[in-house]
């Protein structure tokens, strides 16, 4: 029973982080048609920002506040300098953002060296959840992720900005004709996507080892989550991340964590092939 509760919480933890990362990717792709290969590096920047704040006398909490803002600025600048020149060239967005990801990674290597960093957990201690002791900090991470995801959904489904954004996702040209400033929306969206990635990296920085290569380990599962969940819907990443995250944790617990990711990716590739429009889209059609 305790084991089950811990398993459930670990899975929820991973899924929520994955949703946070995948959501940024999905919004940017859905709205702008941009596949952002540098998304994992945005996450890395968020994590390093927290680490730097922590080392220079600030606290984890200050870092958590600053990191999304800093990464948002970086995202804004990259959008202005590079991404806006290649809208509507999807394959080129992959290449250009891949180049950017390489530069960001190398920039981190130049400043902080190729080695890895770790941080102390800001909240120590455990609480009993369903009779099982569980670290408070992990619950905090889940809370932050959940709040960010909820905020994103609220923004997309309950504000004027969200209405305009969904209009652009549905039909960009028509939205433009109706007087929606698509250029401004693109800029905001990319910045927001970067901020989400920055937040994801920042909030979990104390739990993982920070190194320049850390982004890829999250980028690939996030992409697979989106593909498995289905594009064109903001709900897709939720379903996808749940599929990827839960299976990953299940195999890791029952068999071995080393093979879990491998098996999950292989299964997901097969799933993507068999349900190309995504699990979420499929269920919706049946309803």
């Amino acid at each position, binding site marked *: 029973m305790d084991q089950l509760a811990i398993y459930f919480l670990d899975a929820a933890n991973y899924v929520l982080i994955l949703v946070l990362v995948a959501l940024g990717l999905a919004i940017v792709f859905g709205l702008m048609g941009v596949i952002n290969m540098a998304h994992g590096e945005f996450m890395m920047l968020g994590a390093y920002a927290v680490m730097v704040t922590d080392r220079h006398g600030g606290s984890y909490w200050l870092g958590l506040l600053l990191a999304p803002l800093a990464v948002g600025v970086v995202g804004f600048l990259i959008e202005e300098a590079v991404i806006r020149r*290649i809208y509507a060239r*999807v*394959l080129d967005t992959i290449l250009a953002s891949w*180049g950017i990801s*390489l530069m960001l990674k190398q920039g981190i*290597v130049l400043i902080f060296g190729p080695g890895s960093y770790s941080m102390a957990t800001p909240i120590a201690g455990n609480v009993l959840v369903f009779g099982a002791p569980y670290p408070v900090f992990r619950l905090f991470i889940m809370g932050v992720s959940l709040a960010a995801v909820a905020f994103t959904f609220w923004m997309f489904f309950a504000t004027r900005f969200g209405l305009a954004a969904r209009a652009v996702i549905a039909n960009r040209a028509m939205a433009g004709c109706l007087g929606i400033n698509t250029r401004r929306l693109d800029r905001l969206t990319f910045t927001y996507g970067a901020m989400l990635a920055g937040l994801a990296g920042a909030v979990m920085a104390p739990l993982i080892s920070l190194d320049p290569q850390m982004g890829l380990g999250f980028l690939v599962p996030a992409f697979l989550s989106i593909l498995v969940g289905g594009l064109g819907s903001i709900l897709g990443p939720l379903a996808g991340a749940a599929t990827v995250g839960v299976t990953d944790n299940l195999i890791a617990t029952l068999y071995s964590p080393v093979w879990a990711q*491998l098996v999950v990716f292989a299964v997901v590739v097969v799933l*993507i*092939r068999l349900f190309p429009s995504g699990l979420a889209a499929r269920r919706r059609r049946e309803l």
Partner: protein
Amino acid sequence: MRAGAFLAGLRRLGGEDLSALLALAVFAVLPAFVEEWRLAEFAIFFIYGLFAASQMFIWGHCGVLSLGQAVFFGVGAYGMSTLTLGMIPGLEGVTSTWLGLLFAAALSAGLAFLLGWFLFSAPRLQGAFFGIVMLAVAFIAERLAINWDFLGGLNGLMNVPPINLGLNGDGAEIWESLPVYYIALGVLAVVAALLRRVIASSFGTVLLAIRERDYRTRALGYDIIRYRVLAFTLAGGVAGLAGALFVTQFGFASPALIGFALSAEVLIWVAVGGRQSLVAAILGAVLVRALESGLSAQLGDYWLLFLGAVFVAVVLLLPRGVIGEAIHLAGRGLGRLSSGHDTDQ
């Protein structure tokens, strides 16, 4: 418009073949001018060039962006290593270089065929999504190589024998720089010439048509999935051959050959060299690596930053690539020269 594009295409063809011969001539006499140890390095660069040719064929010519092309390079490398090291159960006695090359290329081509057959038939799994799925495949392959003890795990397979002229690995070994250099250059030239023939053939023309307008090509009665699968298989086979040759010279197969990093690198070589021209892509690989080896002493960690910036700039501004653009301009100059000559007469 169409006739203009066609004419431009013809002229580029002239420029491309010319530059290919020029490059071949330069590399053929290069050993007379550089130190011996440089030659071994260049032999490796030529093998990377072969790998780049595979990426150019599938990406530049067929329009299929594979973000995990190193999977096939790595499978070729591991295939060659396991065979020539006598590790394959039931075939311990077979250590022939020749069979190894065949085995490696066939293994990669077979894997590419299966993956292509499985993935291309999904209607929505095209373009960017195919690229990302291949990235996931590269990730899987790298993890597999790291965690599979049979393949040596993280350390990889060491002491892979060099090219052996004997029928079953019992003849003269070739490990001196000069012959290795010419073997690599020769294989590169022959395979590139063959790929050039394929690109210019009617099969290649159909692939080009599929790249430009897949639904129209289908409407003309071509089975576009079959064409794509065959092209992917061919590209996989060439990448596997490159991987196999690589380990005969490097002597060592490791998970780094199969994963994400090398997949990204080959994409950069081809983009910077020029994805629309075979020669440009190959020269891109050779020159980027040669520059890297020459400049890494001075630039150190800044080299990758610089390379990333060049890559982004090329994607934004120079879709033909640096060398491709140069060849294009030279070809155009050539065309203008020849047409000017005509009016004189």
